[in-house]
């Protein structure tokens, strides 16, 4: 045990245990629906077993003891010595919560004050109180063999961990080792492998045969057929000697039929013969097996499992580092492009003296440079995308966690709640998923507590008794859109109106003038909660403001729409990744700004006479719509003054009166970038369009602080810093 460093194993242990706890929650929820769900029982048993095993290694005895008894409990359930009742279910849920807390503390502080002993005693008592005495001794050590475990174990599920009994009916296992190329003394290694394997199982034959080993040169692979009932992992470990590049462990059956799941060959004993039309073998080996035959059922389930992608756990700091390097590469490439362009122009200018052969030669070199840069671009784009992809994970697991949240909320609130999930394959940056968890939980709680009505009230309103909360994710251009909606009573604007007056946020007169839209926006106000009663979970009036802040911290935006009596929908819009943005580079005054492409509707040129005045403010007509025309000078101040390079930078009239009058100053055409934040569209005056570019977002907070109106900075090809406009905020600032 002293061989490895436990501290290094800790992150893996915690990650794995988190996954198991999430999986257990899922299994228990399914058991709550169907207490006889054999697959869920099996999964729960296996996961408790895994946690137990891992906790022993880490020396967490309390966890070990608790999971040991839980494992015993599920062994009783699994083997039908016990019926799963509500008390068992509740007890297990409590255990999961406690285990989760315990491990969360462990992750945060390296230890946990949570005492597991009381729960352990409870579970132990439950196990002992079982109708039939549990065979604890039998199950304490080994994972359950998936009895007769017939043959149809697909090779294509390499990462699914069940302790595969990889032998066929005759118990024959083929172990093939592939040696590293040009391995010296490969025949000696082969003998060593054979020796080690024979310590565990009887050797039936080898290929090449042992006596011919030294004749085969080079010896690249060695196959041993064993009569064994050992687990694949064990054999694999035995065969793993130095110089072995690859180990394959197969049952004889698998080697005969490499893709059993595609070939509807009814296996004797696995599926009913084709005489019964109910169990006609077809492409899907689905639930053909009756529940009375647990073994085939397990096998069928196994082969139905979708292929699990092989994964690797990587410290996210390492990925961040790679990400930064990829970003640097993109910047360096942009720099090369700029240099090549400069050279090209230089030589174009010297065309008059083209009789000089050296100039011609240099031109060729410049051309070659441009081609090389093009190649570099392809590689850096690919690398960047590849690194980016490593950070992208589906949102599904995050959504799945809400099944448990909804269940608990539905119990505690006495409301019937269904959860609908959509778009779970939508991928976004891992860090974003981590940060989204809390805001989403708050929104879902809000939907159940404040949105959904009690069953009786729903029935009275002609709605189904059970309310529905929907979590939906989708890609939209460069963004991910996540919606949290409910079919509850909607936001009562009149109540908000009363509330803001009674809290003194707005005077009664002006409050009467506010539109529904204005009123709904008050839900983001700190200290305003529309719930009639304060519940344990939400309703303290803190939260929605924090939700908004959290999402804005992720460079996202959140919006709410509500129809009284029909429900409320929160829409969260997030960039696909925090790190890289497609943007339009523009020059405004003397600076280069990046405008995120997903906020740009179009780019137009306007003449001064096309600018209208609406209540003294400039506006232009874009596709029959009047939109406000603004310049950065209207929203920003530089050191408390207009920008020195702006038209009113030299002690002119105040920007209030003239900054927006910008277009009047010039008789030539002006460029306007039409931008929107999903609700409001404005025209932003720019001095020059530079071009589109992927920019690597660098946070301003890292060395400075956040600045409203900017989402960050980025480094350009010429090495200078450009600022990235945060249009959601800029548009807000214009409205003010």
């Amino acid at each position: 045990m002293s061989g490895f460093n436990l501290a290094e194993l800790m992150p893996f242990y915690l990650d794995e245990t988190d996954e198991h706890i999430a999986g257990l929650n899922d299994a228990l929820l399914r058991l709550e629906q169907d207490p006889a769900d054999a697959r869920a029982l099996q999964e729960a048993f296996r996961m408790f077993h895994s946690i137990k095993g891992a906790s022993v290694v880490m020396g967490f005895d309390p966890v070990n003891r608790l999971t040991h008894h839980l494992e015993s409990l599920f062994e009783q359930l699994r083997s039908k010595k016990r019926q799963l009742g509500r008390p068992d279910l509740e007890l297990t849920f409590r255990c999961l919560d406690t285990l989760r807390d315990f491990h969360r503390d462990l992750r945060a502080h390296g230890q946990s004050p949570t005492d597991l002993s009381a729960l352990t005693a409870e579970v132990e008592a439950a196990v002992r109180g079982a109708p039939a005495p549990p065979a604890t001794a039998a199950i304490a050590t080994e994972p359950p063999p998936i009895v007769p475990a017939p043959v149809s174990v697909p090779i294509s599920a390499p990462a699914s961990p069940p302790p595969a009994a990889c032998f066929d009916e005759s118990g024959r296992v083929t172990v093939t080792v592939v040696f590293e190329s040009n391995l010296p003394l490969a025949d000696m290694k082969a003998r060593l492998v054979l020796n080690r394997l024979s310590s565990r199982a009887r050797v039936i034959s080898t290929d090449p045969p042992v006596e011919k080993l030294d004749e085969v040169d080079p010896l690249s692979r060695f196959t041993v057929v064993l009569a064994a009932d050992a687990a694949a992992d064990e054999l694999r470990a035995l065969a793993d000697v130095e110089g072995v590049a690859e180990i394959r462990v197969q049952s004889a059956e698998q080697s005969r039929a490499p893709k059993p799941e595609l070939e509807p060959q009814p296996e004797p004993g696995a599926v009913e013969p084709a005489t019964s039309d109910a169990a006609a073998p077809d492409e899907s080996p689905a639930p053909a097996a009756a529940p009375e035959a647990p073994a085939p059922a397990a096998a069928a389930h196994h082969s139905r499992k979708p292929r699990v992608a092989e994964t690797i756990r990587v410290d996210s700091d390492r990925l961040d580092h790679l990400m930064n390097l990829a970003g640097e590469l993109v910047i360096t490439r942009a720099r090369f492009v700029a240099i090549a362009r400069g050279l090209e122009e230089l030589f174009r200018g010297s065309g008059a003296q083209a009789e000089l052969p050296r100039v011609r030669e240099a031109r060729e070199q410049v051309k070659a440079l441009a081609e090389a840069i093009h190649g570099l671009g392809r590689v850096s784009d690919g690398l960047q995308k590849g690194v980016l992809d490593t950070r992208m994970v589906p949102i599904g697991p995050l959504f799945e966690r809400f099944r448990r949240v909804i269940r608990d909320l539905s119990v505690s609130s006495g409301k019937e709640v269904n959860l609908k999930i959509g778009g779970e394959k939508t991928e976004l940056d891992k860090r974003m998923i981590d940060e989204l968890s809390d805001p989403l939980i708050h929104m879902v709680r809000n939907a159940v507590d404040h949105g959904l009505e009690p069953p009786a009230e729903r029935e009275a309103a002609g709605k189904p008794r059970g309310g529905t909360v929907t979590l939906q994710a989708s890609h939209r251009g460069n963004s991910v859109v996540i919606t949290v909606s409910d079919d509850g009573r909607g936001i009562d604007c009149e109540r908000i109106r009363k509330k803001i007056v009674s809290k003194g946020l707005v005077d009664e007169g002006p409050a009467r003038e506010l539109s529904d839209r204005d009123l709904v926006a008050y839900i983001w106000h700190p200290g305003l909660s529309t719930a009639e009663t304060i519940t344990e979970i939400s309703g303290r009036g803190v939260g929605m403001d924090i939700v908004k802040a959290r999402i804005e911290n992720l460079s996202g935006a959140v919006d709410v729409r509500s129809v009284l009596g029909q429900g409320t929908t929160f829409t969260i819009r997030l960039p696909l990744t925090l790190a890289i943005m497609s943007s339009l580079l523009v020059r405004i005054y003397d600076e280069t700004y990046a405008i995120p492409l997903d906020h740009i509707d179009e780019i137009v040129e306007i003449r001064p006479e096309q600018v209208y005045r609406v209540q003294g403010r400039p506006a232009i007509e874009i596709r029959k719509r009047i939109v406000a025309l603004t310049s950065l000078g209207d929203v920003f101040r530089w050191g408390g003054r207009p920008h020195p390079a702006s038209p009113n930078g030299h002690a002119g009239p105040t920007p209030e009166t003239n900054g927006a009058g910008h277009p009047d100053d010039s008789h030539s055409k002006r460029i306007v970038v039409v931008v929107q934040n999903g609700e409001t569209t404005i025209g932003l005056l720019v001095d020059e369009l530079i071009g589109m570019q992927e920019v690597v977002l660098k946070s301003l907070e890292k060395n400075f602080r956040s600045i409203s109106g900017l989402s960050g900075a980025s480094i350009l090809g010429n090495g200078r810093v450009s600022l990235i406009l945060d249009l959601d905020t800029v548009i807000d600032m214009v409205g003010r």
Partner: protein
Amino acid sequence: MFAGSRNAPTTEGAPRPGDASPVIQLVGFRLDNEDYAIAITRIQEIILMKPITRLPQVPDFIEGLINLRGSVIPIVNLRKRFGLPAREVDDETRIIVVNVHDRTVGCVVDAVTQVMRINRDQIQPPPLSVMAVAHQYLSGLARLDDRLLIILDIDRLFDEPSLAVGTG
């Protein structure tokens, strides 16, 4: 690195009375003909002036942002910070890059003079309001030949709302 660095203080942070080592190393620089110094332990590097991207919504002593080998760092103009008259950038102008509160910040100074070693007992506590610099940003004064050296406490200098997170 520097002569006699074996005896150099190993303490981090600004020189404060009460630190163990009797000798501290300082980097001297000039602002409006006055001599200033910062503890060498806080200085990451000293670079030439480079193009600065102007930032909106910040006080005027924040010049803007520069790219320091892939990091985006803010640049503070110490003249403006201390209310001294402005001065054109010239060959002597430098940016002193310091590490403060887990951040990297550049300070524009007129010129960097020298690295010096000073005995702690040579440092006098700052008198109340004798100079442009508010006394809370000083960790002390020291007499150097016939000149007065103003030792800055950069932790306190950058420990103010205009440089803090979340006040945008």
